[in-house]
Structure formats: C-alpha cells, structure tokens
C-alpha cells in the first residue's frame, strides 16, 4: 500500500517537475514549413462526377426514345392492383433499408478496426 502511494507521489512529482514550455513562435515556425494545401483534388473529383452523371443522363434519354420507357413504366404501375402496389412499395423500402444497414455496419467496423 505504502509502495503504491510512494509511486503515485513520485509520478505526481514528475508531472509537476515538467515545466510548461512557452510556444515562443514554435507553432508559427512549424506552420511556415508545411507544404501548400492541395485544394484542387476534391473539386476536380466533383467535376468528374457531375460530368459523368450529365453524360449518362443524356445517353439514357436518347437511347430510350425521349424518355418513353418512363411513361410506359408509369402506365404499368398505375394499372397494378392496390395490394401489389403496396407490396412493391414495401419490398422496395425493405431493400433500401437493408442496403443502408449493411453499409452502416461495414463503415462502423472499418472505423473500429
């Protein structure tokens, strides 16, 4: 017991004996030596993503005869019985929720690794 309190006392003395070192321009000196930040990378990535989306949308519009497939799909959907429509909505919801849950679990385990 005495040995433990002696150790605690020694640790406390050591912590107290360590002086706080004033910055005195140290931080400024470090910051001056930092390499310039590369900001272009993220905006470049965003531009590529946007351009790809626009091109893909234009291609889909042209290939589907001016978006006719959407009208056809909507007509079919409207013609479905109510129970089927409800089942379709429920199934889609469950599918999206499962995918979201899997992605969240994967991300969480990646962060804890």
């Amino acid at each position, binding site marked *: 017991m005495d040995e433990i309190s002696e150790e605690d006392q020694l*640790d406390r003395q*050591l*912590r107290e*004996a*360590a002086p706080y070192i004033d*910055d005195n321009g*140290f931080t400024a000196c*470090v*910051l001056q*030596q930092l390499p310039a930040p590369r900001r272009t990378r993220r905006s470049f990535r965003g531009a590529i993503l946007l351009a790809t989306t626009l091109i893909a949308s234009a291609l889909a519009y042209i290939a589907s005869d001016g978006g006719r497939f959407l009208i056809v799909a909507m007509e079919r959907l409207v013609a479905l019985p109510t129970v089927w429509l409800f089942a379709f909505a429920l199934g889609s919801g469950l599918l999206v929720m499962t995918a979201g849950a899997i992605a969240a679990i994967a991300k969480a385990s990646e962060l804890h690794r």
Partner: protein
Amino acid sequence: MELTDADLVARVLLDADQHAFGELVRRHQSTVRGLLRQLTRTDLALADDLAQETFLRAYKNIRGFRGEARFSTWLYRIAYNCFREDARRRKEFVGVDEEQLQAEHDPQIVDSALRHDLMHALSLLPLHERSAVLLCCQNGLSHDEASRVLGIPLGTVKTNVLRGREKLKRTLVEWGPN
C-alpha cells in the same frame, strides 16, 4: 465549445485546414518538446529541431492517424522515431550500462546545486528506462500505449518503468538530506 483533437484532425483531413493543424501544434508543443528535451538530455536546440520534424511528419502522414490511440500518443510515437533516427545518424543511440549509471550516480560527480532536481535525476537514467518513465509516469500513458510508442513488448515497458522508478527513488534518497 472547444474542438477535440479528433475534430481538428478531421478538419485537416477534409479541408487541409492548416489553422486546425496549428491548433493541434499549440496544444501539444509543450509535451512533445518536453519529452524530446528529456530524451536528448536537455539539448534544447536539438530537441526543438526534432519537435519541428515531428509535427511536419505528423502533418504529412495525418491520414495514418486512425483514431485508435490518442492523438498525443500518436505524436509521441513520431517524436520517439525522430529522436531514434537522429541518434542513429549521430551514432549516439547506445544504451547506458549499469556501470556507467553507477558512475553517473556518484554524488561527487553530481552538481550539488541540482541535488533535489527530479528532472536531473531523470536525465541520469539510461535511455530505455528514461523513455518508459517519461511516457508512463510523467505523460500519463498506459503501459500498453507506451509499448506501442516505443515499439517494445509490454512486459519490457513494465520492467523499465519499475526499474526506472526504483533508480529515481534511490537517487533522490542519496541526494536527500542526511
């Protein structure tokens, strides 16, 4: 509300925010410089050069910080590596053996003005014990964290802390009033 170290690291990662990194430097400069001053046996200029190198490396490799340990522990690891590499370059990275330690403990060699100076007693410990005592006792790292910083097994850290403490106590008793 004050941002945590993790928040500041996130800002550096996402926006390359150098002001956030500056805040991290301000927060940790004293402990990192203090640690290096003790490791270099109070060579202030060398310690500050190594501290600058430590923070520059931390900035360049900040993606390597995964938040598994405290940011300060990660910094200590970099600081210790900087010190070790520099010491290797200078070919001074040699352990002090027991004989040398005893010689250093000779009260006639020790300046009487420093008799009660704990930091001086600490600087007399051999490097492996000094670094373990510095990290665990002075900077409050767990044995496990110190083991990761120093890159040595957990058992060795515990032994080094135990021996370092014993030697410190012995030295202080020897220097104390008779």
